[in-house]
Structure formats: C-alpha cells, structure tokens
C-alpha cells in the first residue's frame, strides 16, 4: 500500500517537479502513470521507494513514512526498475548481475541460485547466463535489469518505461507476466508512453501534467477521453479511435479492448444482415 499526501518536490536547482500530488495505491492494484515528457512521472515514482523524499507532504509505504527509513530497507518490498539499464549493469556475467540484489538482501546461497534461474527463464535470457551484460543488445540489457529486480520477488514492482526497445513478443510476455503478478496480489506501477500496451492491459490510469495529476480512473474511461489525452500529449488507442469515428452508428465510444470491439462489430454485422 502506497499513500502519498499532497506531496511537493523541488530539485536542488529549484525546478518544482511535483506540485501537490496525492494518491493511494492499494495492494494488488495495477496502475499505469502516463503523461508528456517532463510531467514529473519519474520524479513521482522515485518517492515510492524513498529515493526522493518529498520537500512537502508525506509518503507512506505499508504505513511507514519514507523519511523515517532507508532506501535499502524499503527496497526489499518495493522493486524499482530504472528507465535506462546502463545505469545499473556492472557485473561480469548476467548471472552475477541478477544475484547482486539477492546478496545485498542476504538470501541463502541455495535460494539465490533458484531465484536467478527463475528470473533468467522468466525473461528468456537463460542462454546469456554466463555472458557479460555489456555485450547484449539494448532490449536484452533492459531485460537483464528487469530480471535483476524481479529476482527478489518484491511485493510492489515499479517499472519506469518497461516496454522501450522491446519487440512485440517480449512486450506480450511482459504483459502476461504483469497479469500473473496481479493475480498474485502484487502491486504494479508502470510509467509508460505506450498507449497500446496500456490499452491491452487495461489498468487504472493516472495522467500527469506539469507536476500534477489531471486524471485518475479506469483505463476504459481515461484512454477514450480525447480532451484529457490531448492535454497529456497522448493519442487515442487505435481501437478507441475507430469507435470514436464510428460514434454515429450508435456504438459506445469507450472501447479499448479488442475482444469487446470484436463482439460489438459482429453484432453490428448481424443487425445489418437482417
């Protein structure tokens, strides 16, 4: 459970990146934070594991005020994967990279081995086990970074732009993995510009602009609201676009799910055939 109460944050150079945001994310919730470049998304989520402390207001993680504890102890329950994998890879082999955090958290040797194998397989990078992470492609490095956090199985997972540079198959795998985590009642927060990815997952969506939250609600409501999306420089998901254009036919506009769309269109065809 993450609770943020009216938090403000200014960087040392006086840029006010957050101007009063409040949010409650319950256990087991899946949240996507979207918004234009520089909206303050990365700044916001760095408050969830104590990397940044609010200059005003309060953030509580599982009831603990983040100013009263260390990042390392919060990290045990809140896994955070950074935007750029090159900011964390340093080991000689992928395997060692993944076990780094597990060692920091003092897991048993046996458990470390199991968790590493599990994470390697989950992200299909098992064949690179003994390879240097620096020799991998961009998308693969991203997956190593992801695996290195998933490995300790945190209760909350925060992903900054997880789909960047991933091909369709990997995105689909990521989506399935997120759904699996959701089924296990884990909390997931992603920051992304990938509107199709969000439409497919249909999570709770939060739109940010200029350091404030401008919309918060279910995906079907927010991703089909042209005004809000325009404000945050997001285009409608393609399905929503089609249904907006088809509005004259008397079809509902708030459709982002492909199966729902298909069912509706089949119904239209039946009606036309009669």
């Amino acid at each position, binding site marked *: 459970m993450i609770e943020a109460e009216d938090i403000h944050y200014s960087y040392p150079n006086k840029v006010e990146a957050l101007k009063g945001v409040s949010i409650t994310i319950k256990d087991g919730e899946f949240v996507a934070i979207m918004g234009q470049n520089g909206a303050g998304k990365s700044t916001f989520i760095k408050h969830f*594991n104590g*990397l940044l402390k609010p200059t005003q207001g309060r953030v509580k993680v599982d009831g603990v005020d983040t100013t009263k504890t260390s*990042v390392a102890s919060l990290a045990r329950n809140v896994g*955070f994967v*950074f935007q*750029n994998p090159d900011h964390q890879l340093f080991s000689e082999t992928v395997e060692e990279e993944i076990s*780094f955090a597990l060692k920091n958290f003092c897991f048993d040797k046996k458990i470390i081995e199991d968790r590493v194998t599990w994470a390697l397989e989950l992200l299909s990078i098992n064949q690179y086990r003994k390879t240097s992470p620096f020799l991998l492609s961009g998308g693969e490095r991203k997956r190593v970074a992801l695996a290195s956090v998933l490995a300790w199985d945190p209760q909350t997972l925060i992903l900054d732009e997880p789909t960047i540079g991933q091909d369709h198959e990997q995105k689909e795998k990521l989506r399935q993995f997120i759904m699996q985590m959701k089924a296990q009642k884990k909390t997931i927060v992603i920051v992304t510009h990938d509107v199709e990815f969000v439409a497919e997952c249909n999570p709770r969506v939060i739109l940010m602009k200029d350091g404030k939250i401008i919309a918060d609600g279910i995906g079907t409501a927010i991703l089909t609201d042209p005004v809000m999306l325009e404000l945050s420089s997001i285009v409608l998901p393609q399905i929503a676009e089609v249904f907006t254009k088809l509005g004259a036919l008397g079809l509902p506009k708030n459709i982002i799910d492909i199966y729902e769309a298909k069912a509706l269109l089949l119904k239209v065809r039946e009606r036309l055939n009669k």
Partner: protein
Amino acid sequence: MSVFDGLKFRKVTSPVHNLDPRMKFIYVIVIFVSAILFSSIIPLMVLFVMQLPFVFVAKVQKQWVRSLRGAAFLALFIFIINIVTSYFGNNFTLLASNIEAAIALTLRFVVLIESFSVFFLTTSPDHLGLALEQSRVPYEFAFAFTTAVRFVPVLAEEAQTIMDAQKARGLELEKGNLLKRIRNYIPVLIPLIVSAIRRSLELAEAMESRAWGASKKRTNLFSLKLHKGDYALLALSIGVLVGAIYISFFVSIPTITSLF
C-alpha cells in the same frame, strides 16, 4: 558531487563573462604561480581576497561557495596531513608555527580551487574552444577538450542516477569499514565508466555520420578580439606576477606567529 557544480557554466553575461578566455586563463595561471611562490598566510590571504571582486561582479557567489564547500573535505585532509606529519617530524611536538604552516598550505589549495572555479564559472565551453583554436591548438584537440568540460556536469548527474539505481537494489554505500565502503562504490563506478565510453563512441558515430571533419579548413562564426578590459586584465596579471616574484624573493614576509 558539489565540487563539479563549481565547474558548471551557466549562461549569464557580466563584464567578467565577457572577458577574453585567454586573458582570464593567463590571470588564473598567474594566481596559480603566485600561490605556489608563497607559503605564508598573509600573501595567500591577499591572493584569496583579490579574486572576490571577480566573483561578485560575475554574480556567481552561490555556485562559487558551493564549489568551495565541495573542496572543503580535501582542504581538511591537506590540513590534517600537514599537522600530523609536522607533529611526527618534530619529535612529537606541535609548534604554533607548524599550525600556521598547515593553515597556509591549506589556504594555498583553496586559492587554487578558487581561481579555477572562477574561471570555469565565467567561461562558456564555446568560448574556451574558440580560445584554444585561436591559440593554434588543432581543432580536434580543442573540440575534445571542450566536449570533456561540457560533459563533467552530465557525468555528475549520471553518477547520482546510478547511485539511486543501485540503492534501489539494496546497495548501502555507507555500510561497513573503510575498505568495504570503497568496494561499495564499484557498482557505481563501473556503470559510470561504461556508459561514458558507450556515450563517447555513440557521439563519435553520430558526429561522423553528420560529416564531422569533412572540410579541412574551418571558419568560425565568431572570433575573439581583445578589448580594453582584456588589456587591463593582462596588465593586472603581469603586475601581480612581477609583484609576487619581487616580494617572494626580496621582501621578508612576517609570519603571524612572529608578530606576537
């Protein structure tokens, strides 16, 4: 990382910013040489104070103070080393003059940092590159130098991000004894170096694909010309240098302890 803040140029204009970088550099070198010539407090104090007008005219007090604060740790280190060595060198006694010498050496370090900080705070990398080129430094070197200067703050910022990323994976930098603490920085240093190398390779590729170095003869949109202020600064530099050499060889400077 605050030491680097003292090297970060911000675009403002002031009489000091507009001075020719070559003249400013000569001035910095003169201060540097003078600081090396003296090892007693009084002249070093004078050198320290002499640069304050530049700081205030250029309105870079804040960043300047920050860079001095960043250097405070090293200054303290120099002071302690001096005290300790003179204590052991003097059969375990510490004279007032020893303390004064230690203070003087620390002050010398501060003066050096101060002058370089003023130089970098008031000189844009572009200006610096131009100055190098017009001093007949080959363009490739001038470019490499200005790029390096430009990337210092970027690197400092990146180091912060990397520290965050590793802390999020449970790294505790302040844990353990001294050796352990140094080892804790490996997960920060390696990504920093790797990404710096990666970036420089990418930069080189990007530049070459935009035809860098295609024409052998380059011309510049702006060229540096010396103005009245620059000549004044040159005169001041020569004056200071001559004065410093004269005083250090022919005038006996009283130490503070000898005044009592």
